[in-house]
């Protein structure tokens, strides 16, 4: 299972956490498409706390974290 955590306005109309069933080749792009999140709405994409590309295949048990463009100080 892949746990996906969403933040800020990505939570609007969606749950904070969404679980995906693992399959060989599942990656960020697939997750975004399924959740209907346009790529330009993604600023930070982390897998187990590290930056990863949207292409890279995930492993079973990975935790994915997605932030839209936000900032602060």
């Amino acid at each position, binding site marked *: 299972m892949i746990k996906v*955590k969403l*933040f800020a306005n990505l939570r609007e109309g969606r749950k904070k956490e969404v679980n995906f069933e693992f399959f060989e080749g599942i990656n960020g792009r697939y997750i975004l498409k399924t959740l209907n999140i346009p790529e330009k709405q993604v*600023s930070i994409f982390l897998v187990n706390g590290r930056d990863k590309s949207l292409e890279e295949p995930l492993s079973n048990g990975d935790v994915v974290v997605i932030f*839209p*463009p936000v900032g602060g*100080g």
Partner: protein
Amino acid sequence: MYGYAGKILRINLTDQKIKVEDLKTEWAKRYIGGRGLASKYLFEEIDPKVDPFSSENKLIIATGPLTGTSVPTGGRYMVITKSPLTGAIACSNSGGFFGAELKIAGYDMIIFEGKAPKPVYIAIEDDKVEIKDAGHLWGKLVYETTDILKQEYGDKAKVLAIGPAGEKLARIAAVINDYDRAAGRSGVGAVMGSKNVKAIVVRGTKGVSVANEQKVKDVVASKTKILRENPVTGEGLPAYGTAVLVNIINEHGIFPVANFQKAYTPEADKISGETMAKTILTKKHACFRCPIACGRVVKFKDGKEIGGPEYETVWAYGADCEVYDLNAISEANYWCNQYGLDTISTGATIAAAMELYQRGYIKDEEIAKDGLSLKFGDSEAIVGWTIKIGKREGLGDKMAEGSYRLCEAYGVPELSMSVKKQELPAYDPRGVQGHGLVYATSNRGGCHVRGYLISAEILGIPQKLDRFSLEEKAEWAKLFQDLTAVIDSLGMCLFTSFAFSLKDYVELMNAVCGTDYTEETLLTAGERIYNLERLFNLKAGIDSSQDTLPKRLLEEPIPEGPSKGAVHKLSELLPKYYEVRGWDEKGYPKEETLKKLEI
């Protein structure tokens, strides 16, 4: 002059004399205004070795050339002095409306000299400036002080004040303006208190002249459009405020918990900007001429609305003290505004006290009379100790000295998570190497905003850097530090840098002031300012031995979370940084650097 008022108010508190001087335009050309120009005045006018609480120290309230104009976010002002917390130069930055009003009244800066024999406040109504007796205000909290002065001078008047903490010379005391905006860091409130100045009330009706009205109109329109269309400044910040960073920083595993003993917590979302928006938030709030509106207004217990906590406050009182209760954090923030305390240093000092208690240095018998716990996670404690610190009561008296002096009193200064005795803010440098370098080298001590490399290393603005890599971090640190010095000196808000690049600032400055800066000359002014601050510090006795980080962050790996195992590699970064800065191995600016910068 355009943008600039061209006038300085020099107030000698000892002699009770007020003078209006011309602004030194030659210095303004090279040091811009605000932070830079006031630092130049301070550098030239005081001996950097003076005791910060002595009458020889000076306190400067400085606006930038763009403060009070129609430039988006053109409302910032700064408080510059020698810090009683760090012994280094202090330059504390604030928004709200006070700075704009001061400029509109016709003044670029106020320079306070000497010490008033009894508590006073300053009343400014355009050309009419008076030193008035503050006997009826001394001892009062900030809100009441502000209310009284606004009643007397009109609701349109703006008020800057210290609370009891500054009066009692708490080294972590802040200057508060417009009820809940703060020039927070470095104990500037205590310097104001040491001069017996309780408040400044200002009403300005003169306005600010600009070089080319149509040009300014056009440039302002296009720059405001950039801010509105940028997702950070146009959507994220107004919707969630700065506390949107809570989850971002935590998910990267660099959210300091329990005085930097840990750097990740599963509880973070409870105190995030998202949760604030769904619970205590009533509306957003903007400073003077700001289209971003990152400020928060939140519900208080008796149904009142109060200024809500920023990210740093949510961290310092939240994760750093392990209290995951937004109501308690909001209340602590409220008392910081009322007593006039820096939320970062106060929360972090309470966290240090909590670790001292955890490790048995502070014992139950010692705090029995205070009637408060020092256990991590106690939500009444963060509120109660803030008030004790504001009053300098019980252990609060020692805590009012800041975490370094507190920990030193128990023989363990290494438990203070500070640099140059100023408490570190809400990012664990072990997981962000460049940002840690900025912590170690910031001219005002432990500080995040003077070179906010989190922007690049975490948020990817202007480009994404690998936070664990050391490559080019020295160059990036210098760039961010120099650019920040520019923005601070202009009188604009640092958050514009999420959307602007250097050329936007050049266009705004030249349109308003009729100057002819290029990107190169404006950034060089920033570098000049940075080096001048460094010279001040070196003369004050703050040398490269203090360009360091707490031992814990250099030697103990982050124990768990997404950045598990990381330490900060400062010794590998610092020599390169000195080189890139044109300083020698001891961190002294080389002759050729000073010559090139025409310092």
